[in-house]
């Protein structure tokens, strides 16, 4: 008999901060009528890792997170936490901390009581409960707000309390369901860094669901892009951005130009330049090449292949839209001084830098 503490313990001491555990989701399937919310999703989380699931509305990312929490039933598939099959364990025995989109704090309890709720259920002594709750409120920067009620806290503060509440039970896994989407842009960026700091500090394995690519890239160790209930690609942020595996990933994450070209021998001819192809590209014939704006160069040239339509000055950098002679439009990222020089109508030459690109048939 191994004595793992995978269910709520009934010790009188508050649980110690949980180290990271490994999580494996294997071939999860869930459909509502004819819609497949999860269509064979498999995903592994390393101990202590923060993985973001990124995707458009309805791609199944929230269903995946709720399935891990035990709030959603699965048609088939296996959920393994710390090497144990927890597929059939009900939500309140899974010991997972969850932070919801918004409004999840119990309105009838103070911040301290909210944070202490999980410990109260575990019959932790009142004094220890209070100590631990205050400790966690301190951790999220709300040490002085312990006696406030949710309606007396701002949206950002409420989400901090929700994070503290989720962490108070020293969860095996931390689940974040778009915790920032209901907040103002400024608070969002601030809380984003805050969550990452706290997560590093406690080292809890974390699954984070978002539709905001910037959030995902900024916070996660690895980002999984989902579409139609399936994982398109999972990789560290830089790799995901620079070496997208599918057209969906290339276009969902960051900006992309679709430019026609021809592929031969692992290279593509695009706007007169031979560019190396990424793994998974179409390798021969006429292809569409997906090129990032920052891989496109624009230089004034009377004999060029296009004319500037609209420059955009963005402060630290600039973007220029150019209409090519074949009437297609490309977007290029340029230095900000260039954005002011390339006035509409300027004839320019557009070329592609030889960074690896994805080509599709």
């Amino acid at each position, binding site marked *: 008999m191994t004595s793992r503490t995978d269910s709520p313990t009934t010790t009188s001491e508050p649980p110690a901060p949980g180290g990271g555990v490994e999580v494996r989701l294997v071939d999860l399937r869930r459909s509502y009528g004819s819609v497949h919310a999860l269509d064979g999703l498999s995903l592994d989380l390393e101990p202590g890792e923060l993985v973001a699931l990124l995707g*458009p509305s*309805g791609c199944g990312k929230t269903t995946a997170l*709720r399935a891990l929490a035990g709030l959603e*039933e699965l048609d088939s598939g296996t959920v393994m936490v710390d090497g144990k099959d927890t597929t059939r364990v009900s939500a309140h025995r899974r010991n997972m901390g969850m932070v919801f989109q918004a409004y999840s704090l119990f309105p009838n309890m103070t911040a301290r009581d909210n944070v202490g709720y999980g410990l109260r259920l575990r019959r932790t002594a009142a004094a220890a409960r209070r100590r631990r709750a205050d400790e966690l409120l301190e951790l999220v920067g709300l040490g002085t707000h312990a006696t406030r009620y949710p309606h007396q806290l701002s949206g950002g503060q409420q989400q901090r309390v929700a994070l503290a509440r989720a962490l108070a039970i020293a969860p095996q896994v931390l689940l974040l*369901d*778009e915790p920032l989407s209901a907040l103002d842009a400024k608070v969002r960026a601030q809380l984003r860094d805050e969550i990452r700091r706290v997560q590093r500090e406690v080292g809890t394995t974390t699954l984070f669901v*978002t539709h905001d690519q910037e959030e995902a890239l900024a916070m996660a160790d690895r980002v999984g892009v989902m579409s139609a209930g399936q994982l398109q690609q999972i990789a560290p942020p830089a790799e995901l951005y620079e070496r997208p595996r599918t057209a969906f990933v290339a276009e969902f994450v960051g900006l992309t130009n679709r430019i026609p070209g021809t592929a031969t021998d692992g290279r593509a001819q695009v706007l007169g330049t031979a560019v190396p192809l990424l793994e998974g590209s179409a390798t021969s014939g006429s292809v569409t090449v997906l090129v990032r704006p920052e891989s496109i160069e624009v230089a004034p040239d009377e004999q060029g292949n296009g004319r500037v339509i609209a420059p955009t000055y963005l402060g630290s950098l600039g973007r220029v839209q150019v209409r090519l002679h074949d009437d297609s439009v490309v977007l290029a990222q340029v230095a900000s001084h260039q954005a002011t020089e390339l006035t509409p109508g300027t004839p320019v030459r557009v070329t592609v830098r030889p960074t690896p690109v994805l080509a599709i048939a």
Partner: protein
Amino acid sequence: MAAVTRTRGSRWVLRWLVLVVVAIYLLLPLLAMVEFSTRGAGGTRSLDAWRGIGEDDDLVGSIVASVELAALTVVGMLVLLVPTMTWVHLRVPAMRRVVEFICLLPLTIPAIVLVVGVAPIYAWVTYLVGDSALTLTFVYVVLVLPYAYRAIDGGLGAIDIVTLSEAARSLGSSWFQVLVRVIIPNIRGALISASVVSIALVLGEFTIASLLNFDTVQVVINLLGKRNAGIAVAVSVAALLFAFVLLVVVAYLEPRRRDAQEDDTTAVPAPQEARS
């Protein structure tokens, strides 16, 4: 998942137990009314009582009077409340609390109390306007104030009427045009529910009509109950059904509370924002 299923199961049983028990309590008297009103001589079924509805002149007259009364009350209520509430929203926000307090006041003044105070005033009303049941309109408008106020207030709260009216004014509308062309079309749903609540209240009102001695449908039904219970019960069933249908229709006219759920959230009603 086994545990989940079991608790769902027991909840399901409890839910339907409650629904069935309460449904029996609420439906039994209604079924009894149907049974009672279709009794014939010697244990047979007969529709005589139902046919009798149309043949009783007092009853028909009172139904006509009550329907007219309902229509007048709706008109009076709308004319009194819509311009006033719009005006207060736009120009005298300081009066909002006062108007709200007055409109909700009839909730704390039972009809039986109102009739005590209003009886002396009705001596004057009949002297000035005449001794018609339709004069009840005045006191019925007061009676429906709280319900109509809430409905219209909800409608006005749901649209930004300050911006709307400023936009209309900047395009050259007069105040009256703002009211008729901009405000009213935008709170049509609220006006419909305010009207329906008023109609139901007027058609069901007994206390004031009976104690001021006007023959509305409820007063006549009550008298009829002592003379020919069959007809009285038959009219009651018809009236209850009529009110029910009216309210179901209104429920379908109201805008849907939540949009069709997204595939990701089918199990749980979406909160404020759509999930992924």
